[in-house]
């Protein structure tokens, strides 16, 4: 089932919560809504489910307008963050109870319950009460209850956020596999960008009541359309610097100084007009060495070295500007000084207008970007 949202807005009293949300979710897609807490993700999900009314705008399932349909007539299933299992029913009863509205024969219900339990590897625990299960198992029951309905659309609201880190990683994979097997349309809400990136086929980034960008994980990562998406997606976060561009001299002036105490310059790729910008550079594009190799290298003091073994996140500093270099090798933990080499390729330098935060791209680059905000 394909879902279409057109110009959805939502106010709680005078408080705006959603502003002009327009999006299309394709049949069978694993679609993720990501954004900081309070950005309206759950609200969108509840409007799609019909649990709360939108202030304005419409919802279509395939070509049918469902804006005013009751939740039960939308034939979808939902997995809640706190699982919303009924504590006084066994696992199997919970799943069966979810089939209430489908008017199946007892035999069919039995089969659905058994299949769903098998799919989440819980067949052995069918007679337990939810509180006799671990968090991860409860979460599986919630998923089983949703898939047992065989709804074409499943909504999940931060289903993994109550689990510990390791279990979360496992469950991510299981959910992705489940989606591959069942091919339902899945709208998945999370505040965790890693979850969004690893699970989603397409991702909607929300902030400040609005859609910031919609795209595949790599589109968001490589072509963030504004400073918010740029810093929200990716870990460690993209470094941001306030810089001035001199188009004639083809230089970027960083808010740092070189070894002689003069403003540090790096070369400007092309196509960016003169002016002041926010410049974003991904930590893994920042190279770090102990000796200066080029005239554009910037000397830095090492603030902290976080060694991961196969890589290092090194916090460095120049003129009170602290940023991160994420290097794919080990770095001496006692190093005090180092030199940073900034990238020179246009694709690695993300310019944003200082006032609007919108990406400023050269004409050539713009042509390559297809998906974006309206």
């Amino acid at each position, binding site marked *: 089932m394909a879902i279409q949202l057109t110009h959805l807005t939502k106010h709680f009293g005078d408080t705006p919560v959603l502003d002009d949300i327009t999006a299309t979710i394709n049949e069978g897609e694993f679609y993720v809504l990501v954004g*900081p*807490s*309070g950005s309206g993700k*759950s609200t969108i999900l*509840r409007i799609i489910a*019909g*649990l*709360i*009314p939108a202030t304005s705008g419409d919802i279509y399932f395939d070509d049918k307008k469902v804006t*005013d*349909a*009751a*939740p039960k007539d939308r034939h979808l299933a939902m997995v*809640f*963050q*706190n699982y919303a299992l009924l504590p006084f029913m066994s696992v199997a009863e919970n799943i069966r109870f979810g089939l209430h509205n489908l008017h199946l024969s007892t035999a069919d219900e039995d089969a659905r319950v058994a299949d769903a339990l098998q799919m989440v590897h819980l067949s052995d625990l069918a007679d337990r009460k939810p509180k006799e299960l671990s968090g991860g198992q409860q979460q599986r029951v919630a998923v089983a209850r949703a898939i047992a309905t065989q709804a074409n659309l499943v909504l999940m*609201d931060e289903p993994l*956020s109550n689990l510990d880190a390791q279990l979360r990683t496992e469950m991510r994979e299981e959910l992705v596999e489940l989606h591959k097997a069942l091919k339902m349309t899945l709208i998945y809400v999370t*505040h965790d960008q890693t979850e969004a990136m690893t699970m989603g086929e397409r991702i909607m980034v929300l902030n400040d009541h609005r859609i910031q960008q919609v795209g595949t994980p790599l589109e968001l990562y490589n072509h963030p359309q504004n400073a918010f998406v740029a810093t929200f997606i990716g870990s460690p976060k993209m470094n941001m610097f306030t810089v001035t561009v001199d188009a004639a001299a083809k230089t970027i002036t960083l808010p740092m100084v070189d070894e002689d105490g003069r403003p540090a310059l790096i070369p400007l790729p092309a196509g960016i007009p003169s002016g002041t910008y926010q410049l974003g550079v991904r930590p893994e594009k920042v190279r770090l060495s102990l000796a200066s190799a080029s005239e554009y290298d910037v000397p830095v003091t090492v603030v902290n070295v976080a060694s991961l073994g196969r890589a290092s996140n090194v916090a460095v500093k120049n003129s009170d500007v602290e940023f991160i270099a994420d290097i794919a090798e080990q770095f001496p933990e006692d190093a005090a000084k180092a030199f940073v080499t900034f990238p020179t390729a246009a694709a690695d330098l993300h310019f944003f207008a200082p006032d609007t935060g919108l990406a400023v791209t050269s004409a050539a680059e713009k042509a390559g970007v297809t998906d974006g905000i309206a």
Partner: protein
Amino acid sequence: MVSHNETAVPATATPTPAKRHPWWRSAFWFLLPSLVIMTVFTYYPMVMTVFNSLFATNLTGAAAKFVGFGNYVTIFSDPLFFKSLTNTFIFVACDSVGVILLALLLARLATARIRGAGFFRTAFASTMGVSAAAASILWIFLFNPSVGLISIGLKQLGFGNVNILTDPTGAMIAVILSSIWMGSGFAFLNLLGALQSVPQDYYDVASLAGWSSWRQTWKITIPMVSPTLFFLIVVEVIGAFKTFTQIDLITGGGPDNTTNFIAYKVYQDAFNYRNIGIASAEAIVLTVIIAVATWIQFRYTERKVYYQ
């Protein structure tokens, strides 16, 4: 990360689109049964009592003549009512303090983690399962001048042949004693619940710091259970002001009206002397006392519950 759906928020915040009815079609029907009962048996009689208190009434209870605050003037200049009021206050004070102290002692003893604690808890709570009427019979038996063990005991202690219930002070003490006994189970159970919800860690830390068990009681236990304690005090005070059953069964208000507490006086004036106007005025005095006590309780203990 805290978003609204992580806490138990009343679903009221978001009525579903399909469920928005005009108010008279939905909630109304849920409230109607209770509203009807309350209107007929609470609001209406309350209004009528106020109304009756402003009238001189005839023997059938019908309002005969408007007397304004005349009935109030009458009762407040009636030494008997004054006596009733004073004795009520004395009783309320002794009863509430007694119940709370006894319950505290019982709860303190019963929270010890020892074998058989469950049995003692049941024993201490048992008076809550004994109705005021049955309890009164048990105590009448104890106070009986010829067969009562208390009377017999007093005689053996050299007090001679006392009839506790015909002695003014004795009757008051008898009513207070039996009332404390009746109220202790309820107060005990509440305090026990509160005591058991004080985290053991606090005591562990205090013990490590070398605090005596008295100090622990005063510095940890009492503050931690103070909301319950306050709740209980108010509840006991309200209950004591309404004391009726014990009086009717044990002393009949006597001797010489010593134990004729206000709720009993309302009953006597209304149903024995058929003086509805006067009884109503007395009932309103009782209402004001109870309302103030209840208001204090709402104000100071239930705030967090009402305005979550």
